């Protein structure tokens, strides 16, 4: 399986993603944002970080960069595109997934482990995964998911909510909402479910000695689904 990780000026989780993808069997290529064309890929990842220093709005400048035309075409033709953290912010700015990511409700940069509940397994990202709850890491200042009431209805009607913040048992409630996101939304799909944007970093949970293994479950499952 071939993957591509896009590096923007200010990306800082691109290397971690490269390590994670390779660990679970992807042949990964790093792609600079000024490239015109994506290499042949089964999966494209927009990594976390602070692309363009978060100028204007997080992800807004990166969403207009050269390579993104090719990424948007790839997504619109059914290609798998995953945006993590700043990558999620870039995806909402392209319009590939609905909504927006606002400043965290309590104005704090949040860096901690959280639990997320998988809301929809009928897609190539989460199909066949045994767990319903994953322990993942978040690190962001603008992760407060927002959308209009009309958008929320559409998102829910189309089962586009991918994951929600929850407690270790999978209970979803305000107590377990780290940043003020509507309905504890931590990640969403596009309508066709080939594009996934999420705030948590699975690439930070691939090593027991460092953190945990729930990211490993995600990547192992993902590559098996794509084979």
């Amino acid at each position, binding site marked *: 399986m071939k993957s591509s990780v896009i590096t923007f000026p200010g990306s800082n989780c691109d290397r971690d993603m490269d390590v994670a993808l390779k660990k679970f069997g992807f042949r990964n290529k790093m792609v600079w944002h000024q490239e015109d064309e994506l290499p042949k890929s089964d999966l494209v990842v927009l990594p976390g970080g602070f692309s363009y220093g978060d100028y204007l*709005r997080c992800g*807004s400048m990166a969403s207009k960069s050269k390579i993104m035309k090719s990424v948007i075409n790839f997504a619109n033709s059914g290609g798998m595109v995953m945006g993590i953290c700043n990558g999620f912010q870039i995806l*909402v700015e392209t319009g590939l997934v609905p*909504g927006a990511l*606002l400043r965290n409700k*309590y*104005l704090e940069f949040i860096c901690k482990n959280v639990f997320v509940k998988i809301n929809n397994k009928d897609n190539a990202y989460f199909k066949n995964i045994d767990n319903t709850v994953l322990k993942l890491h978040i690190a962001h200042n603008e992760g*407060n998911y*927002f959308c209009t009431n009309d958008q929320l209805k559409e998102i829910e009607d189309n089962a586009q909510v991918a994951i929600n913040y929850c407690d270790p048992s999978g209970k979803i409630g305000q107590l377990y909402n780290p940043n003020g996101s509507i309905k504890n939304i931590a990640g969403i799909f596009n309508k066709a479910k080939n594009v996934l944007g999420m705030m948590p970093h699975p690439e930070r949970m691939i090593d027991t000695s460092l953190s945990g293994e729930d990211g490993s479950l995600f990547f192992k499952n993902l590559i098996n689904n794509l084979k």
Partner: protein
Amino acid sequence: MKISVIVTLKKDVLDPQGKVIHQALDGMGFNEVNEVRQGKYFEIDTQETNPKKAKDKVEEMCKKLLANLVIENYRIIDVQ
């Protein structure tokens, strides 16, 4: 021509920064304040000399980049 644009968060979008500024003002004794909303201000210097055309172009810039219409409104406040 110089065009000035203000981008603000929509009414129903939470503005935590505005809230904190409001609290600070309150603490400083400005107790008459009802609400504070924080926004962005842009000055765009363009080669276009026709005011109508310049305004239309800046409007397009607002829609495509300067504002995110899911959460923000824009207002062109000055063309000169």
